[in-house]
């Protein structure tokens, strides 16, 4: 279970609580709620604030802000008469780069952006200026891809969790979003603001009731319905709840609190705090696929036809996973991927350690860094041999560590490649950077296939 998320927040995107809270009592209550959330975040041990913003649309996959100090003056496209918003943020560039890489490992299209004058969106600016005004905690901002579906958005969150786990960082997750997003289409006085319609208000309250009960995954699974009911069909949908739920392990037993719910020019604006502490309840009433690796639309620039039925198939179709075989000399760890048969991760014999064949699958998620080599129907996929090889070495290191050994003590390695012509160079490059550095003997074999859709596996003998 991931424990990297210290708290999650839902916050509104419009600039009124930042620029003119005094003009409307509801806007002031939203500002007060922002301030309360700010104090909670300041009192936490968060290393990074991660913002998923619905007012930053993207097309080429997801974009992640990676300018260490983006600085500009933002003026809202609609509410320019409320004033200008100067901003200067501190971005965790190392995290942004790692997240981008993790996205690719899980099959997502993704890139970082670091350009002077890049227009940071209003939702992110409002969130970061009010939640982290002194930049004490570095931030990361990710866009909302206009074409992304639930699988892509869920995998985006899982890639983020991969990085948090790997870097050992604790985070606050923020979605900048409206509840109902229908604004008035005529100009109104600030004092006349209200939720646009009774229907929008009732839906907002139902969604907030779920969140107050900690039922985040239920809200995420109702996302499409909510969107149809209370969302103007703009380019982005109610997808931030997919992301936020996945960031919280798709749980329904969080401890939720609605800090404020008010109208923002007709739209529903809410500040919600979701504490990962279990509320002791939480049966899931709905169940969608739990996606680990994104296999949606790919290679659309290529001229050949794409069979979408194949593209949507699970890449992880393969043998069932087993719990590692126990035994007096067996060495097993939850930090290594589960075996595909009844055998241990390693076995001690005297002062030697014999490892079972180790592949790149990730412990817990079973994801394949660099991507699987074929989909569920057996059709070949593009993959990154270097990413796969690095993941193999990392899994080996975890098993060695569990046995009290280490990379320096590796004596002999037998490597298996399913495509020697394609992959030897990349595999060899990573070898030289990692295991090769310690000087074990090595044999590399070409084989027809491995049980799971991976390209490389290693068999290791080490001293203890």
């Amino acid at each position, binding site marked *: 279970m991931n424990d990297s998320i210290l708290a999650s927040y839902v916050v509104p995107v419009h600039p009124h609580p930042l620029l003119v809270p005094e003009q409307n009592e509801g806007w002031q209550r939203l500002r007060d709620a922002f301030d309360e959330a700010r104090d909670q975040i300041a009192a936490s041990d968060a290393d990074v604030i991660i913002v998923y913003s619905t007012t930053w649309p993207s097309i080429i*996959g997801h974009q992640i802000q990676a300018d260490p100090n983006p600085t500009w003056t933002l003026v809202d496209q609609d509410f320019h008469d409320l004033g200008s918003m100067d901003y200067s943020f501190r971005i965790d560039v190392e995290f942004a780069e790692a997240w981008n890489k993790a996205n690719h490992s899980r099959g997502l299209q993704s890139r970082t952006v670091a350009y*002077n004058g890049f*227009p940071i969106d209003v939702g992110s600016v409002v969130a970061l200026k009010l939640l982290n005004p002194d930049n004490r905690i570095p931030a990361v901002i990710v866009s909302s891809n206009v074409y992304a579906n639930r699988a892509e958005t869920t995998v985006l969150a899982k890639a983020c969790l991969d990085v948090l786990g790997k870097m050992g960082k604790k985070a606050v997750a923020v979605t900048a979003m409206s509840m109902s997003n229908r604004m008035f*289409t005529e100009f109104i006085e600030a004092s006349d603001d209200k939720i646009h319609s009774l229907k929008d208000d009732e839906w907002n309250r139902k969604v907030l009731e779920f969140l107050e009960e900690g039922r985040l995954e239920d809200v995420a699974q109702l996302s499409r319905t909510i969107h149809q009911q209370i969302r103007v*069909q703009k380019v982005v949908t109610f997808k931030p709840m997919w992301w936020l739920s996945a960031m919280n392990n798709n749980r329904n037993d969080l401890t939720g609190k609605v800090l404020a719910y008010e109208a923002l020019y007709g739209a529903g604006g809410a500040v919600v705090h979701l504490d990962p502490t279990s509320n002791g309840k939480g049966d899931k009433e709905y169940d969608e696929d739990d996606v680990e690796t994104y296999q949606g639309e790919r290679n659309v620039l290529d*001229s050949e036809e794409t069979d979408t039925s194949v593209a949507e198939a699970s890449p992880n179709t393969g043998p069932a996973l087993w719990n590692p075989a126990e035994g007096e000399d067996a060495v097993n760890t939850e930090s290594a991927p589960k075996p595909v048969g009844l055998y241990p991760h390693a076995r001690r014999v005297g002062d030697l350690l014999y490892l079972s064949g180790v592949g790149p699958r990730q412990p817990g998620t079973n994801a394949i860094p660099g991507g699987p080599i074929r989909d569920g129907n057996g059709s070949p996929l593009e993959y990154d041999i270097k990413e796969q090889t690095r993941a193999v070495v990392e899994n080996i290191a975890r098993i060695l560590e569990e046995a009290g050994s280490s990379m320096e003590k590796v004596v002999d390695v037998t490597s298996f490649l399913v495509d020697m012509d394609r992959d030897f160079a990349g595999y060899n490059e990573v070898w030289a950077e990692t295991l090769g550095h310690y000087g074990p003997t090595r044999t590399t074999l070409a084989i027809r296939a491995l049980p799971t859709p991976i390209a490389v596996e290693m068999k290791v003998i080490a001293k203890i």
Partner: protein
Amino acid sequence: MAKGSIVAGCLAPHPPHLVYAENPPQNEPNSEGGWEQLRWGYERLRDSLAKIDHDVLVILSPHWQTYVGTHFLGLSHFEGLSVDPIFPNLFRYSYDINIDVELSKAIHDKAADAGLAVKMMNNPDFRVDYGTITTGHMVNPAFDKPLVVISSNRSRHYYSVEVMQEMMMELGRATRDAILESGKKAVVLASNSLSHRHFTTESDVPEDMSREHIASHAMHLWDMRIIDYMRTGQAQRIIDEMPEFTEQAIAESDGGGLTWLLSTLTVPDYPAILHGYGTIIGTGNAIVEWPCYAHEEV
């Protein structure tokens, strides 16, 4: 005062790729070219407009998106750096533009009289959208004529294409009336593409033309159908089929620009000149000119 006129109306799409491919000094990134069919089309449009006396360019850009009313740039000068939030690798452009505030305000007032929600944008920190900058650059890279810049009200998203068309037809009439009363000669420009389904990946070399094509055959058929109406003087059929076109081709006409343009030209029944057609990251783009000067009393 002499009567003003609309001397030409143009469909002038704004993909930043075209500016990127031209390597102008205002844009930071450098390219090896690309999208020549469209850039040559813009060359032909520029040559054509150079032969027509005009005072001002009136642009409606779908990338200044407003949800509460239609807005107009209301200060005489804007300069700054425009960075495309979606393709920042291609477009980081230093702009310096002048606004015909008098005409902007006149259109604003006419539209208000017609019952539309309108607002002038008077914040000097406002960053002009990259759609306006791209269309402005491709039509007049010297930016030596003032602009009127009109936002894209997203009524299609709040209501329907039909409601959007009603509002844009009204805004087009208000635009035309204000121009005629102004005594100025104007070129009106709708800054939008046609079919608008993007690829979701980008080549390592964005200008690699071996990778460029329309997103799907259905999109191509819709684009050709609409272009055929333009070339044969059947603008009314474009208006009539706009709901289906906008929905089925995910067309950027959802921003209202094309309807507004045709309204300013009183839905022309004379042929338009197709200067160029091409795709950009899968979307369909046409550069089209309605030569009003040859068909109306100017």
